[in-house]
């Protein structure tokens, strides 16, 4: 039997939407794995290893990780573009091996490409009908969604004349126009200007309001914080952490920027030398404090030395730093090397 043909608890899967209970998670993976064989050397390179993931219905989950971590591979496995080497997965209760698992799915690939010979409205009508809409319904929805993603002014413009941002918006419209219950988006903000990013954020929030389950990958922490209920951090093909965004960020050490005037020649005291770094600029001196728990100590020392403090600003630890911390690989190249391996495979 195919690995994805049975339920994880051993029951045979009924395979009909009517038999699927509403309590089934929107996404469920059990030991999902994908490896690639190098065409020349025959070496097996893991892409995703033993992924066990559950996304509840109505939840918005961010899939985070550095380049080459396995985010896109995970999303492609779920959408059927890649075939798993091992393990099982279900979308809305349907095994991903079944075509039906994609009936209530909306997917936006990273850097979407479209048929250049079609116009925006023709494309949306086409994909709408492929998702099961009747011709008239597809036409009406195509018009509505073109307007909704800000492309309604010129519905008959051929796609070869679209900019990258316009294509990304069209891709989002195509993913949404059949009212999917599950939305999987691969880097949905990629290639968008600030207005476009805001619009995409609004669309995702609107979908969350409708009860749509959303799984998306991103590098952009502020977007993830705004949108997600939970995040899954993928490192080197493995799910290393599942938590709310707040948990992840609050659990990390924050840097603090202290901008001062009047301290051009001030030497850093040995007591703070391990956490404080000095940067001289033409009009001010900036101290970067690596450990926010020692902020009072640093400020007291600066005031004692006659510094005029102009601003104290917490610096969010970058997402990349969080990933490296999570992998315990800061300063090392292990994760990068593994990621490069997977990319080259």
């Amino acid at each position, binding site marked *: 039997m195919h690995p994805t043909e049975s339920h994880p608890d051993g029951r045979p899967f009924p395979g009909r939407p009517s038999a699927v209970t509403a309590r089934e998670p929107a996404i469920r993976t059990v030991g999902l794995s994908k490896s690639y064989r190098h065409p020349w050397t025959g070496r097996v390179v893991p892409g995703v290893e033993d992924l066990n993931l559950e996304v509840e219905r109505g939840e918005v989950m961010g899939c985070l990780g550095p380049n080459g971590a396995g985010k896109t591979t995970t999303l*492609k496995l779920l*959408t*059927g*573009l*890649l*075939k798993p080497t091992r393990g099982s997965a279900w979308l809305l209760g349907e095994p991903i091996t079944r*075509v*039906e698992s*994609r*009936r209530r*799915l909306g*997917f936006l*690939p990273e*850097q*979407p*490409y*479209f*048929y250049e*010979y*079609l116009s925006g409205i023709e494309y949306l009508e*086409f*994909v709408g*009908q*492929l*998702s*099961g809409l009747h011709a008239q319904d597809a036409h009406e929805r195509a018009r509505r969604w073109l307007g909704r993603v800000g492309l309604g002014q010129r519905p008959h413009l051929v796609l070869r004349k679209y900019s990258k941002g316009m294509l990304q918006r069209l*891709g989002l419209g*195509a993913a949404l126009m059949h009212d999917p219950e599950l939305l999987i988006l691969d880097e949905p903000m990629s290639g968008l200007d600030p207005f476009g990013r805001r619009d995409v954020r609004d669309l995702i929030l609107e979908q969350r309001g409708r009860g749509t389950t959303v799984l998306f990958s991103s590098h952009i922490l502020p977007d993830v914080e705004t949108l997600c209920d939970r995040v899954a951090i993928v490192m080197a093909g493995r799910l290393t952490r599942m938590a709310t965004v707040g948990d992840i960020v609050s659990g990390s050490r924050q840097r603090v920027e202290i901008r001062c005037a009047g301290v051009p020649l001030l030497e850093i005291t040995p007591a703070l030398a391990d956490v404080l770094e000095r940067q001289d600029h033409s009009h001010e001196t900036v101290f970067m404090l690596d450990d926010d728990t020692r902020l009072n100590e640093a400020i007291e020392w600066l005031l004692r030395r006659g510094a005029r403090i102009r601003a104290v600003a917490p610096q969010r630890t970058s997402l990349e730093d969080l990933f490296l911390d999570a992998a315990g690989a800061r300063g090392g190249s292990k994760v990068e090397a593994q990621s490069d391996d997977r990319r080259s495979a």
Partner: protein
Amino acid sequence: MTVPLIARNTFREATRDRVLAGVVIAGGVVILGTQLLHTLALGEGRRLTTDLGLTTISLFGLLIVLLVGTSLVAKEIERRTIFNLLVRPISRPAYLVGKWLGLSGALWVVAGSLGLVLWGVLALQGHGAMGPAVLEGAYLAGLELTVITALAVLFSALSTPVLSALYTLGFYAVGQWSWDLREFARQAPGALKSTLEVVANLVPNLPVFNMRALAASGEPTTVYHLVLATLYALVYCGCVLALASAAFESRDFK
């Protein structure tokens, strides 16, 4: 339901491609050009025009298959437009069959259009009664192109556009000689005989679709032959597409 949608979109893609328009215009010009040879044909003008005209339909159709058909799936994979289709409730075999039907439809339109031009040229020469023979010739050319398109879809689903063009051309060339190959196999010794028989059975039996000499002499093809050729084309296409689907089913799209 998804097969006709994909077929329609592929037909739209092919007919909006300038290659197809260019080939149809060039084919039309060649058929019209046979008028120039008419006077030199020493009374064989009708035969010459019909033979050259039907050959033009066949060869220019093959050119479209090589230029458009062999990159039909490979280009979609390369440009990643296939992602937008396969993440929808579409089976991979349905996708391939839709692509094959769409391009075959466009080729039938080409064969029909060039057939009309040919009939027009013959009518101008005073041979309007050649209509049925031209129709039969164009129909068989359409069947032949449908078979070649199925092979193009198979190779396109498995390799690059350049390689699939080479494979398709190779199968077309060997297919044209399949009767001779079969005859040669009959006289060949031992292992070579078996090998040649296998090859002759694998490649399409294209001489079945070549009734140009008969049409040029104004004699009709028998209904029996037309039915047989149609059934053969359907069975061969079915086998090729089943093979393509089986191979395509396990393919990863990175």
